[in-house]
């Protein structure tokens, strides 16, 4: 019997599960190796659990999410979270630094309709997670690697090191050193293939902190390259705001 695969989402934009559909060259092979039991973005035909491997995107932002993720965990032999929302709370975790009630009153004509938690939290804050795949969105090749590793019963080969490794490997000229462009590459986890610096832009950290990160040491570098205190905070407060914030004051 083929192992079963399920894909679920919490608070998210669907981009990470879309990455699975983007694996066009590998999809047929994958469908030959696993039984896709639950993947609403691909098919309305769903089968119940338990599932051998479950991918979850999105963060927990409501009491309902918190309940659902416990049910998903209970129905999953292996639970892998995918993307910045599921692994770090996502862009919606900016609420963690703000007054959610004030937001609710300003944004919605009928704030009383909105039922939400005060924070956006990663799945790992609620249930045990077997592996976290980072990125906003995740990288297609890394997703295939995670699925391949699961099928082979081995640990995924997903590096912990910085984006700088990937820039140097592909021969990209350092945008910080040669152009004075603020870049989060030295503190950000590799995985995207160093996409932004290849287009002469600074890394904006969508894969979150690397496995070995010294974020306080980057702050003076960002200041040197023209960011003021507020700019630095805004630079860090995007898709992985809470993860970078923890690194700022370890």
């Amino acid at each position, binding site marked *: 019997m083929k192992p079963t695969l399920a894909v679920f989402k919490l608070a998210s934009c669907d981009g990470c599960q879309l990455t699975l559909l983007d694996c066009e060259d*590998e999809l047929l*092979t*994958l469908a*030959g*190796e696993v039984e896709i039991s639950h993947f609403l973005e691909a098919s309305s035909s769903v089968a119940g659990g338990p599932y051998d491997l479950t991918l979850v995107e999105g963060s927990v932002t409501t009491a309902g999410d918190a309940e659902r993720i416990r049910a998903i965990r209970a129905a999953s032999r292996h639970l892998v979270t995918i993307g910045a929302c599921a692994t770090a709370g996502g862009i919606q975790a900016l609420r963690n630094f703000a007054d959610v009630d004030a937001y609710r009153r300003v944004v919605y004509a009928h704030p009383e309709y909105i039922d939400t938690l005060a924070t956006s939290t990663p799945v790992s804050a609620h249930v045990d997670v077997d592996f976290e795949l980072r990125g906003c969105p995740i990288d297609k090749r890394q997703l*295939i690697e995670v*699925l*391949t*590793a699961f*099928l*082979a019963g081995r640990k995924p*080969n997903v*590096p*912990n*090191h*910085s984006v*700088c*490794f990937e820039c*140097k*490997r*592909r*021969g*990209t*000229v*350092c945008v*910080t*050193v*040669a*152009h*004075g462009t603020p*870049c989060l*590459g*030295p*503190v950000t986890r590799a995985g995207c293939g160093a996409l932004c610096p290849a287009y*002469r832009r600074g890394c904006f950290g969508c894969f979150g902190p690397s*496995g*070995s*990160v*010294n974020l*306080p*040491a*980057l702050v*003076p*570098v960002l200041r*040197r390259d023209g960011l003021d205190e507020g700019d630095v905070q805004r630079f860090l407060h995007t898709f992985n705001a809470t993860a970078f914030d923890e690194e700022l004051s370890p």
Partner: protein
Amino acid sequence: MSVTAAPALLDRDGLNALVSALVAQGRTVIGPTVRDGAIVLAELDSADALPFGWGVELDAGRYRLVRREDGAAFAHSAGPQSWKNFLHPARERLWSAERTPEGDVSFTPQEPAVPSYAFLGVRPCDLRAIAIQGRVLTGGRHADGGYAGRRERALIVAVECTEPGAACFCVSTGGGPAVDPGYDLALTEVDGRFLVRVGSDEGAALLEQVPHRGAGPDVEESARAAVDSARERMGRALPPVDLRALMGASLTAERWDDVAARCLTCGNCTMVCPTCFCTTTEEVTDLTGDHTERWQRWDSCFDLDFSYLHGGPVRSSPRSRYRQWLTHKLGTWHDQFGTSGCVGCGRCIAWCPAGIDITEEVAALDTERAARGTETD
């Protein structure tokens, strides 16, 4: 023309003819060229792609291209790559294996890619770095066949250094701006022309195909003066002490905490270093599990996983990783390979985003050792 012949002189047309001759030999000519705001090493179709009229302005963590009025082609230093990018590539497949439906597994070794390179514009520091890395990768019992093949086939046109950068300190590592043996041809740029010395029979044969004339004593004197002047203009220097002894005496130094507070552990220094050689291997399997490949890729002692043994990394703190890099480079490299691992090219200084300066760190360690000595007296 032979190895012992008097130096020749090439003008710019001669340099063009040299590159054309190398291309005509079927060689992949690699040399400096301007790309993305830096002087990188890349394949050259002609000498016109050389960075004529470009220099660099360097500082710790800072590299900027600047225009030069003299139109010089080789008046730049500490680019983001070194020749190891070609001799010791960042990624290389070692072997692949297939599993048949019957369950048998067959292995296929990967024949290493051994292009016929010509390296144009190898600076004296980098020629020393090639020799050091060659000893590491081919000197022991388990020679890297791919590296050996690429090095063996490569033709080297060195260029003496007449314009050291602000990050340069080769003189204090025992080197200097004059070229050591190991080249096929060596150029010295003098007022838009190139003094040529022959270092091998292959170099001699190549020069024969290129229009040139005798250099004459005046040009030779100018070339010598330019190189001598470069020796006096090093931007930086390591302290003039026994560095191996200093590293050995500094294992518990407080300075490691100071540098660790600034070190991003991003690994840039090791990847731009022309002698850093560490690699790891990765298994790449496909979804079916019937096909697998083993790839070798650059690794770095700044990567947490580099020292991962059962249960965790041996060098988990940034302090221990920076210390490992520096004490190996300047200290235990001697024990392992008979020389220092540093040629003073300055790349690790210029390309560290945080601007950590190896010469400053070593000087601080020296000062700390001296202070400790005073305390115990």
